[in-house]
């Protein structure tokens, strides 16, 4: 098999605090291949965004990578110095932020922000950079791109601004794009357009996309594979269809059962009892065990192995595909 664009191996991110060391990302591993969209889901604080930030090297101090490897097309990037990493950012990996209203500099025109990025990474003249900027806007579906290149961000609507953000993230043609909740701040109708745009760019350019979101609808719509995170750990990883229909980890099953589906009509949604433990107060064993209806003594002692299942991987002693799957999904 070809080398994955992004390969995260046993990544651990730590934040030292006065009350001890927190691990917002704990032993996470996954690969993303060219032209593939990996969805990363989880509740707030599950470590999804933190994983993305660690990959692109934008962890806010004092958070730092404690151990593990991050390989970009086989090249280790987790140990690169600040400036070497900066050269990769924008050029080989781009990032899309959540709120298009705040991610563009209000005092610089769209063209200024685009050409600045292009000229930072590619060896082109200003005129060429400007042409590329227009082409980038055109590609993300901004009408009359050449006329709008000198507009300021406030002259665009929210959805259009997110397109500009995507153009900015992609203008130097990176291999990897990390999209951190790219649709959360948008209207539902605009969300679908942005997701369609991301999918198209991913297919056409063969970009690897890490799509961080808490919206299962977005995952079902866009992702090829999905990684479910819980309390900093990877609970389950597998093809999106299998994970949604036949979850192995009880947490994933609970998550799916609590997601409203139009096909299920107005049935009352299931809830997972309790809430995700805070990072400073993780239980000894599996972090989900206090809320898990299948938990046994073993689960409370030891987090358990990550095992290969028929879907992919699940960090559970008792993956549902071999136990009471029917009960959990109902």
């Amino acid at each position, binding site marked *: 098999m070809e080398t994955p664009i992004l390969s995260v191996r046993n990544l651990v991110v730590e934040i030292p605090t006065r009350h001890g060391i927190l691990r917002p990302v704990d032993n996470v591993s996954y690969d993303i291949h060219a032209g593939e969209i990996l969805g990363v889901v989880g509740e707030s604080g599950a470590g999804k965004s933190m994983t993305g930030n660690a990959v692109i090297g934008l962890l806010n101090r004092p958070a730092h990578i404690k151990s593990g490897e991050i390989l970009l097309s086989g090249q280790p990037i987790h140990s690169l110095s600040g400036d070497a990493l900066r*050269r990769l950012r924008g050029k080989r990996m781009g990032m899309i932020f959540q709120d298009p209203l*705040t991610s563009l500099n209000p*005092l610089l025109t769209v063209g200024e922000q685009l050409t*600045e990025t292009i000229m930072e990474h590619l060896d082109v003249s200003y005129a060429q950079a400007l042409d590329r900027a227009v082409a980038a806007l055109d590609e993300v579906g901004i009408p009359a791109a050449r006329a709008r290149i000198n507009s*300021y961000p406030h*002259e665009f609507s929210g959805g259009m601004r997110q397109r500009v953000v995507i153009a900015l993230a992609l203008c130097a043609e990176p291999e990897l794009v990390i999209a951190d909740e790219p649709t959360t701040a948008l209207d539902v109708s605009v969300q679908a357009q942005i997701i369609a745009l991301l999918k198209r760019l991913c297919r056409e350019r063969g970009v690897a996309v890490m799509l961080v979101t808490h919206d299962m609808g977005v995952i079902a719509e866009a992702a090829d594979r999905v990684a479910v995170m819980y309390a900093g750990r990877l609970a389950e990883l597998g093809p999106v269809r299998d994970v949604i229909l036949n979850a192995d980890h009880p947490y994933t099953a609970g998550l799916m059962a609590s997601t409203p589906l139009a096909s299920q009509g107005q049935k009352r949604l299931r809830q997972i009892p309790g809430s995700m433990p805070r990072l400073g107060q993780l239980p000894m064993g599996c972090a989900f065990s206090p809320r898990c209806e299948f938990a046994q003594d073993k689960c409370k002692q030891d987090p358990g192995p990550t095992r290969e299942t028929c879907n992919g991987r699940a960090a559970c002693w008792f993956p549902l595909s071999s136990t009471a799957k029917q009960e959990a999904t109902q």
Partner: protein
Amino acid sequence: MLAYILRRVFQSLIVLLAVGLVAFAMFNFVGDPVDNMLGQERTQADIERLRQQLGLDQPFLVQYWKFLEQAAQGNFGLSYRQGRPVADILAERLPATLELALVSGILALIGGVVLGIFTAIRRSGVAANVIMTVSLVGVSLPTFLIGVVLIYVFSVELGWLPSFGRGEVVDLGWWSTGFLTVSGLKALILPAIMLGLYQMTLIMRLVRTEMLEVLRMDYIRFARARGIREKSINFKHALKNTLVPVITITGLQLGSIIAFAIITETVFQWPGVGLLFINAVQFVDIPVMAAYLMMISVMFVAINLIVDMLYFAIDPRLRLDRKGGGH
């Protein structure tokens, strides 16, 4: 935008009218001018004649209107003390104050912005912390004390710089400048530092706070995620976004540099309008006080107007009548 400017000009005029009323009121209520002008041996007939001659027997509004009419033409009458037109005296003194204000204003602005950026970027560095601590002294010490300390160190102990006066000046006919002689420039240094130090620390702290605020914004993170160099992030992306509040404060401070040059001019015996005003107060020279008051308020209003215009130049979001917007 034109409507906005017109509205602001109109507001400025109202402010000036109000200040004019105060200045005018000084003539009538801070002692009777007729009393001041006629000596001890006056008769009732003398008083009546002079009142009529000066137009003081006319209704209040008519007098106020006449005062405004004259003031608008720069005519504030004769100084009680020197017996010369107040406008001439002010024109003679103004260059000294403006040159001092200009130098200390530039000092405060450049020093404040540079140090503000430095302390924001190197937030936890030793140098930044030392600067922040020293700046506290600048903010909290009274300015006259700083002036006295400067004189003691650089004039009395070291003997490098003059302790008073303007040095030699070159008369250009309509303007007398100290910029063209060595002694004039040397004489400028200490007063300019004394006058500008407080403003500099203020601007520095403001720039630092704004910079720290802006550096936390999403668009700075996004610029980092695109691999933009730190230098460009700090000076292009962040600095521009800190400028609007900085310009507001700097504009107001420039006004107060001119207005409150009084203390500096007194400490250094600087022959500017501030010193003139202090002397006028001592001699109850009301025309000079009124003219000074009007002049300072015109400056404040003009500076505020210019500051408002500058917002448009910096922040495109305020240019509301620009075409486009929406989709």
